[in-house]
């Protein structure tokens, strides 16, 4: 069929399989290296692709110099582009699968802090407890991802941003919130222990 050396034919067979997407692993890397380093392989790749196009439709037939000029022009433009670096598919999927956890964790932390703050605010007469709030809250915020930690400060900074639903919640649970300062501190201590335990 051809007088080409065996290694040339082996390279071409590899390119042929890659045309069909039937090559994997190191063979793909090797075939791409052929395209990069070897003009003969580039011409072969083009010929195989052109054959496929003409098989599908005569009006896809093209002049090789035209195709070559197109790629040469594009290559010059690609050289100005930053190199694409995207994570491989499997890690991306894994990242996406757990992506919901970040906001969920932040929300959980937010809710915990908000409840603690409002519970303690309800015990206003117990001055000792109220002043201990900021110190007690610090370990609680450690529960959250560092980037989301800023969110936790919102309920502390101003009681005005308190969610109306919390008022509703507290009104419904008035008997518990008014129980005792000791109970509230116990809750705080539990949260602190949980935070350092991680």
């Amino acid at each position: 069929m051809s007088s080409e050396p065996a290694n040339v034919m082996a390279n071409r067979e590899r390119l042929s399989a890659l045309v069909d997407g039937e090559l994997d692993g190191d063979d793909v890397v090797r075939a791409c290296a052929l395209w990069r380093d070897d003009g003969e392989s580039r011409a072969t790749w083009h010929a195989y692709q052109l054959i496929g196009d003409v098989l599908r439709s005569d009006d896809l037939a093209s002049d090789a110099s035209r195709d070559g000029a197109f790629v040469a022009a594009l290559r010059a433009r690609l050289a100005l582009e930053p190199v694409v670096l995207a994570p491989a598919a499997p890690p991306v999927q894994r990242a996406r699968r757990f992506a919901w956890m970040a906001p969920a964790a932040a929300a959980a932390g937010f809710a915990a802090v908000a409840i603690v703050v409002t519970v303690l605010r309800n015990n206003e007469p117990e001055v000792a407890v109220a002043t201990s709030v900021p110190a007690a809250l610090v370990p609680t915020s450690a529960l959250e991802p560092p980037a989301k930690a800023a969110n936790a400060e919102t309920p502390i900074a101003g009681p005005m941003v308190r969610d109306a639903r919390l008022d509703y919640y507290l009104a419904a649970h008035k008997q518990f919130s008014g129980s005792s300062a000791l109970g509230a501190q116990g809750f705080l201590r539990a949260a602190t222990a949980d935070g350092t335990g991680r």
Partner: protein
Amino acid sequence: MTAADADAPLVERVKLGDVKAFEMLVVKYQRRIERLIGRMVRDVDLVPDIAQETFIRAYRAIPQFRGDSAFYTWLYRIAVNTAKKALVELKRDPVVTESSLASRGDDDETSRVENELSDGETPDAVLASKEVAAAVNSAIEALSEDLRQAITLREIEGLSYEEIAELMNCPIGTVRSRIFRAREAIALKLRPLLDTREGERW
């Protein structure tokens, strides 16, 4: 493996930073993309520019390509959007190019046919394209039945090697070899037309 993800190995290489793998995809799709744009944009002089822009945009966006659709489906959409955007810009800032002036007097139907046939190429290029098509078709006619069937099932029907092996009742390795031999037999007839200084052009 189906035809839909035949590009997956190359797309993965591009995502790993291999620009050359993207060039391989360009060589695969440049003719289809230019034909598609040529059908949307009447001004044939703009077709290569819009095709270039399409591939640049695809290259920039490829980290976002998740493989939910075939690579060509994704590229096709980019080409359509790029052509539409070019048409809008053209309306805002019309630039009369030589070829649009030349085709202005033509009857619409006639010039549309001409556009599809020539894509704004010179008569020499049109002739070269016709020679390429004729060479490929006659080389396919000359193939043995086994080789012709294998490459047809792959290129026209889009079947995987595994499916072809099942249909032709032979091992997958034989399918791979038959398709390769078919391509080489056709390429042998094609090479003199494609380039006399083989490799230099690419």
